[in-house]
């Protein structure tokens, strides 16, 4: 039996990157986007609506997190328990910081769901430059299906069943990349940036474990691996957003850098509220949330970060 096509939702860079990776893996891609921006190829079919994606077994969600729920609802009508859904979005929903796999589960009949996390970037997927990431799912079949669909010599994919950890790590990295951009904007050097990254990741891991994730996930590709790629300069918008916040640029200008700002702002607020509620010590995230929301002046946030009492590692 020939392998079914792979569905992709989202015509942004990431959607196209996944489509090209599918093409390189010798499979057919079905890409659905309201604004596809580019023309299809021999192995990338642009489809006009969600119904056409039912033909696929594996469907990637490559859309910003605020749109995942409504698109999933629209698509869910055409799916059943045989479809696999995998998202690549950063973000948490609700007071209990649920990942987006939870949204996919509640809006569609699909249960075999997962998340793609780690230092995968759209450009590398498009050009075929070496990159990698981690696919998280409770279902080995989903992990294998993602590897088969986009893995290969250019895309090394590791897998984990720690969906909670991978999703939260991915969200946290988005925030920390913004925080590092913010630190850069304030002229803080590599040592201060490294301190910020390391302590922030330790905080994220504590929260992740409280949510039911595994500590080691934060030390892997979904956590540190992804953050290192951001700091090394893979041109993701979060760093630019962080620098813009540090420069006190108007909100609407920051919003135009990338759609991730408002998502990040919302996630930061949610995470900070959660840590207050469950009494988890999370000073870096709390300060980030306050600084991103402009509740405290940028300079004050940097001073507060540096003046925290240093404890045991």
């Amino acid at each position, binding site marked *: 039996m020939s392998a079914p096509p792979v569905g992709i939702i989202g015509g942004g860079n990431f959607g196209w990157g996944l489509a090209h990776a599918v093409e390189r893996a010798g499979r057919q891609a079905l890409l659905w986007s309201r604004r596809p921006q580019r023309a299809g190829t021999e192995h990338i079919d642009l489809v006009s609506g969600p119904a056409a994606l039912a033909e696929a077994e594996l469907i990637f969600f490559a859309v910003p997190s605020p749109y995942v729920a409504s698109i999933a609802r629209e698509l869910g009508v055409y799916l059943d328990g045989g479809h696999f859904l995998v998202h690549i979005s950063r973000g948490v929903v609700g007071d209990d910081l649920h990942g987006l796999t939870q949204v996919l589960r509640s809006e569609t*009949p699909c249960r075999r769901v997962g998340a793609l996390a780690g230092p995968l970037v759209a450009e590398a997927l498009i050009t075929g430059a070496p990159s990698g990431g981690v696919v998280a799912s409770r279902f080995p079949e989903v992990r294998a299906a993602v590897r088969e669909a986009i893995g290969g010599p250019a895309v090394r994919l590791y897998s984990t069943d720690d969906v909670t950890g991978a999703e939260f790590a991915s969200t946290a990295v988005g925030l920390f990349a913004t925080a590092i951009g913010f630190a850069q904007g304030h002229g803080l050097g590599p040592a201060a940036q490294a301190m910020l990254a390391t302590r922030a990741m330790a905080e994220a891991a504590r929260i992740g474990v409280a949510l039911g994730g595994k500590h080691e996930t934060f030390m892997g590709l979904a956590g540190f691996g992804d953050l290192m790629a951001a700091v090394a300069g893979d041109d993701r918008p979060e760093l630019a957003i962080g620098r813009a916040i540090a420069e006190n640029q108007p909100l609407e200008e920051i919003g135009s850098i990338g759609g991730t700002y408002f998502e990040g702002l919302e996630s930061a607020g949610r995470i900070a509220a959660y840590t207050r509620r469950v009494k988890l010590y999370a000073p870096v995230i709390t300060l980030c949330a306050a600084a991103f929301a402009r509740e405290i002046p940028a300079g004050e946030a940097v001073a507060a970060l540096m003046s925290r009492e240093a404890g045991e590692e």
Partner: protein
Amino acid sequence: MRSFVHRLLTRPLRLPAVLGPKPQPGDPQIFRFNGEREQIIAEVVRRTEQHFAADPKKLLYVLNEAGHAEIRRLAAQGDAEADQALGSWRRLVKRLGKMSDEERAESLRSITRVMAEDIAGNFDPRVYKLATRLVPGVLTAVMNPMGLPTQLLSGGFSQLDALISAEGPLDKLRRLAQKGTLVLVPTHSSNLDSVALGYVLMRENLPPVVYGAGKNLFSNPLISFFMHNLGAYRVDRRVSALLYKEALKTYSCLMIERGYHSLFFPGGTRSRSGMIERRLKLGLAGTAVEAFSRNQSRGLHRPVFFVPATLNYALVLEAETLIEDHLKGAGQARYIIDDDEFSRVDRIYAFMTKLVTLRSALVVRFGDAMDPFCNPVDDEGRSIAPSGQPVDPGSYVSRRGVPSIDPARDAGYTRELGDAIAREYQRETVIIWTQLVAHVLYRYLVWATPELDLFSRQRRRGEVAMPREQLVREVAEARERLLQAEAEGRVHVGPVLRSQSPERIVSEALSAWRDYHTKVVAREVGDDVLIEDPNLLLFYQNRLLPWAEELATEETLAAARSIVNQGGKA
């Protein structure tokens, strides 16, 4: 002689099969069990062999593992049963290295057969009919011997009906029982749970269920006779051998595959803390997913319906032992408690005699059924997707349209089911008046001793008194908030708590605890209520943990948060 008596007392008794009635069309599957028993045991042996014997290394390992685990256990047990079995296990372990693969497979078959025979229950329709008539009488008699003649004359057992109430979509469950296999997954508070559930199913015209009961519960010959002949199968928690666990899993899977309605306590053990179980591993209940997949692979499209249920007691028979065990942090070590109140007739009697004076002393609430993939099901038993359209449950165990058996995939579904059932438990919990009074008193204790940690606080016996008038007022306020949460569909409020005055609720709670528990929980001293046993208060109030913060006022919020944060495992 000793061994004969031992055997008589530990082997469940059965009535001769020759004169037994023939099952009728429309009878639940369990009425056919005796005819299928031998087939089921043979299939357990066949599948277990298939699981281990295909790989010679795995076969040798599993026999060695079983041998060493059993020798260790039996040597420590040191009774007549142990002496008999110990010798044969020692001989097996000695010979294993020299055996051929076929000889090892033969050993595996014969050991599995012994295990499966030990596990397999029995169902005798005559015993079921007898129990249908006897149980209400026996329970009522135990509870209130003086009232029995009057009830017999009046021809009813209304007292027991008032004592145990059943809530939830009962009509729908009766319909679903005709369309597929029910898998009941209730919360677990007491060893009385299965008896009470059995009674409720019978009373509500729901079919009987099979369930795995701890072998320790079979130690009383009379109870053993009824349990065994009503379909309970035996689970010996002392046996840790992989081979035994596989045989047990296979048995449970086969029962569901063949359409036997089943009952599992997915919390595994009684809630030591009194909390609603939050993290469920499902254990044997997970075999229902495999059973569904196996049937689908054979082209048999019989649906499986998971039915969460909560058992909400005003008084818990074993409360004193359970909370003590919880606070010692010994829950796991003492997985099998065989010296608790359930093993003492005087405690059961005291419990029942108190219980009978209460109305709705136990509220059994059934939740809505879901398929093995957490989808709700409609009245016709169809799985319903979030869009409101029916979805084929078979699609979840298929790839590209072909159904398959895949334990790793089913483990993923089982984890999701555990989460979904835990969420249902919270929504389907019925708050009982004793729990609310305990919560308000305990919150006061925490408020009065903010500097103390959990363990120091639990030692404050007879030191903190709450003004009675304040207790009544706070119970009334908390009830209002609970009713609000109920209106939002987040919890249920028990009939007594809903209808009685707060004044009466407080008096009844103090009197219920006083008359049943050996320790004084709280007593009235002048205008105050003196807290005497923080442990039992903690146990009863723990049920309210998920709502503690919203029940609090501004003044009591810090105390409520502190209770929530001291949390702990269910």
